[in-house]
């Protein structure tokens, strides 16, 4: 997830290494990948005739396709490399972001929230806010989302180009332009349908390209038992292989966080905020062909998400076993030693021979493209429907045709890509922008979750309550961020411990601003007039009759699979306690 990027993926990545040069088979594999994604975009262009086709893939996706695209849009290349580095730095504790920090939120989204997103027939999360709270809240959310999405896309683009430059020797300009223009072409041609098809393809490539490392790593270290033994041998004083037993206090683990922060801040507020209200991922689910598919999709995504640590965290742990001595980036810059930020490409270089190297590099490129396509499609939808359309209707007093909005979606995709490219070059000139953009994005996640969840579950929430709650939460988040920048000692107040580290800052800031959002929303709602139950039909629990699943056999019901996934999650946490 994005909350860790600032800490784990610095600008000076991979300063000291290069992979072996690519052979003919590696180049052919990479070339074929580009041909395929463009070919898919071209092929799907003839199926993209209406606004619903372009922005919601015609609402015809199966649960599997929507679920894998939902996961793939999140699985960027920086995610892969950043969390492998985190696993080297923090050990198996990094898995918390994939298990308690993701799975409960995805299941909650599927069972509790998805019916309202789907039944309301909204095209976006700001679109839901418009139906529930009105235009002010929707516009506040849409503008902040569109702005940050396109900037995040540029930041990721630059970081990816930097990686390609230092590990493959590609020029930054070449990487930025070739990758982003490729994404732009296939999204402009086929819209969300094309993005989703490619995301599923990219998901498979990420798995098959990245899986080489853990398989061979476990062979080399003698399986899990051998891996743990070698880590303990290399770091007798460290505790890298326990998931929960070191979370009793801030100082007992290398992350500087405790179990309260992990469960309530990361596991609840930040995770639920990201997975349940970030339109970048939710958009994939809105493309599902029916409500059952829309509910099953995040459950399918969650079941795969549980095993992503196998290709992301395990390479970091294998690094601890077979490559001890990697250092932090500052030390690496000063001494020329390898940094643990390089651990994933180092592992790739260690195990991947000809052909497999091309597949591994393709996995990284696929990760980048799936993330970027997610940003671009979400941006074009929010811009077209949630920003441009209401402003136009208000000023011109008339509605535009569907054909016009389709055209607008295509143009906003092109413009979004060029703004992203501009951001990438801006980051190249002013490196610190990267940290600020990532921090800015996190300002909106936690408060938005407070606003959406209260709106969905509590019929007394009013339009004014939603708007002022969201605004108060966002402003308080920015305030806390500025406070810790000006006075780093304030971290002990925000995170409730003098032993807290920057990771705890993100979590506790999210928790506090969510609480502020909820309190302000409730107080203002009690002071203002609510909508009638009839107006809230299809938007709020208690005012909506949800379709019954009683006629389905048990094994076809989403709740059944959600319970299975949750049981597996609990078992995994106990196994790695």
């Amino acid at each position, binding site marked *: 997830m994005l909350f860790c990027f600032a800490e784990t993926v610095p600008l000076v990545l991979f300063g000291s290494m290069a992979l*072996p040069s690519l*052979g*003919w*088979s590696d180049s*052919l*594999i990479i070339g*074929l*990948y580009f041909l*395929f994604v463009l070919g*898919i975009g071209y*092929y*799907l262009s*003839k*199926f993209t005739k209406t606004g619903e086709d372009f922005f919601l893939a015609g609402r015809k996706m199966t649960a599997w*396709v929507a679920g894998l695209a939902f996961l793939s849009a999140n699985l960027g290349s920086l995610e892969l490399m950043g969390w492998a580095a985190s696993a080297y730095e923090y050990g198996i504790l990094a898995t918390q972001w994939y298990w308690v920090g993701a799975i409960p939120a995805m299941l909650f989204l599927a069972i509790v929230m998805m019916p309202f997103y789907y039944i309301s027939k909204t095209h976006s999360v700001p679109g839901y806010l418009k139906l529930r709270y009105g235009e002010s809240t929707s516009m506040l959310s849409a503008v902040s989302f569109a702005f940050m999405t396109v900037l995040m896309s540029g930041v990721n683009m630059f970081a990816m180009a930097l990686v390609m430059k230092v590990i493959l020797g590609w020029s930054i300009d070449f990487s930025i332009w070739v990758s982003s223009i490729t994404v732009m072409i296939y999204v402009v041609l086929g819209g969300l349908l094309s993005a*989703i*098809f490619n995301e*599923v*393809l990219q998901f*498979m*490539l990420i798995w*098959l390209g990245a899986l*080489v490392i853990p*398989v*061979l790593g476990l*062979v*080399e270290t003698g399986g899990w038992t051998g891996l743990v033994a070698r880590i303990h041998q290399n770091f007798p004083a460290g505790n890298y292989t326990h998931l929960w037993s070191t979370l009793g206090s801030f100082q007992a683990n290398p992350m500087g966080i405790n179990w309260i922060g992990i469960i309530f801040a990361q596991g609840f507020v930040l995770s639920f905020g990201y997975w349940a209200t970030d339109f970048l991922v939710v958009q994939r689910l809105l493309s599902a062909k029916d409500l059952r598919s829309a509910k099953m999709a995040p459950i399918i995504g969650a079941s795969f998400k549980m095993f992503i640590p196998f290709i992301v965290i395990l390479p970091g742990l294998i690094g601890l076993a*077979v490559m001890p001595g990697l250092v932090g980036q500052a030390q690496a810059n000063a001494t020329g030693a390898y940094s643990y930020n390089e651990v994933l490409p180092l592992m790739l*270089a*260690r*195990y*991947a*021979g*000809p*052909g*497999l190297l091309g*597949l591994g590099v393709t996995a990284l490129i696929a990760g980048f493209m799936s993330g970027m396509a997610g940003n671009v499609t979400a941006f074009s939808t929010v811009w077209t429907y949630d920003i441009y359309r209401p402003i136009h209707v208000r000023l011109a007093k008339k509605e535009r045709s569907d054909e016009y909005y389709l055209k607008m979606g295509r143009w906003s995709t092109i413009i979004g890509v060029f703004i992203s490219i501009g951001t990438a070059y801006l980051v190249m000139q002013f490196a610190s922008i990267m940290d600020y953009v990532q921090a800015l994005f996190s300002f909106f996640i936690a408060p938005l979750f407070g606003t959406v969840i209260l709106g969905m579950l509590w019929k007394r929430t009013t339009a004014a309550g939603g708007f002022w709650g969201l605004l108060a939460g966002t402003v308080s988040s920015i305030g806390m961020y500025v406070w810790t920048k000006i006075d780093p000692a304030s971290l002990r107040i925000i995170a409730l411990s003098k032993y807290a580290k920057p990771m705890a800052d993100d979590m506790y800031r999210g928790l506090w601003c969510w609480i502020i959002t909820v309190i302000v929303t409730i107080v203002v709602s009690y002071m203002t007039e609510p909508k009638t139950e009839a107006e809230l039909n299809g938007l709020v629990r208690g005012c909506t009759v949800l379709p019954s699943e009683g006629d389905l056999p048990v094994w076809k019901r989403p709740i059944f699979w959600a319970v299975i996934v949750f049981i597996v999650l609990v078992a995994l946490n106990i196994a790695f306690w």
Partner: protein
Amino acid sequence: MDRTERISVWFFIGLLLLMYGIIIAAQNVYDAVHPVSHTGVVLGYLHFGIWWGILLIVIGSVYSVIFRPHKTS
């Protein structure tokens, strides 16, 4: 108006994996027959690329056949 039936995404995936499998297996079989030194590649003696290439060929073939486009009336 009738719309052309869309080819399944799984067919595209199968086709690409099949091609990747053939390329990776062919390259690694050639390297096994004509050994070259790939410095730094650990466990190279396992010829993992051959096995991974075969796996991709199998997965790719299965997906390509099961999800191949059908002619519609």
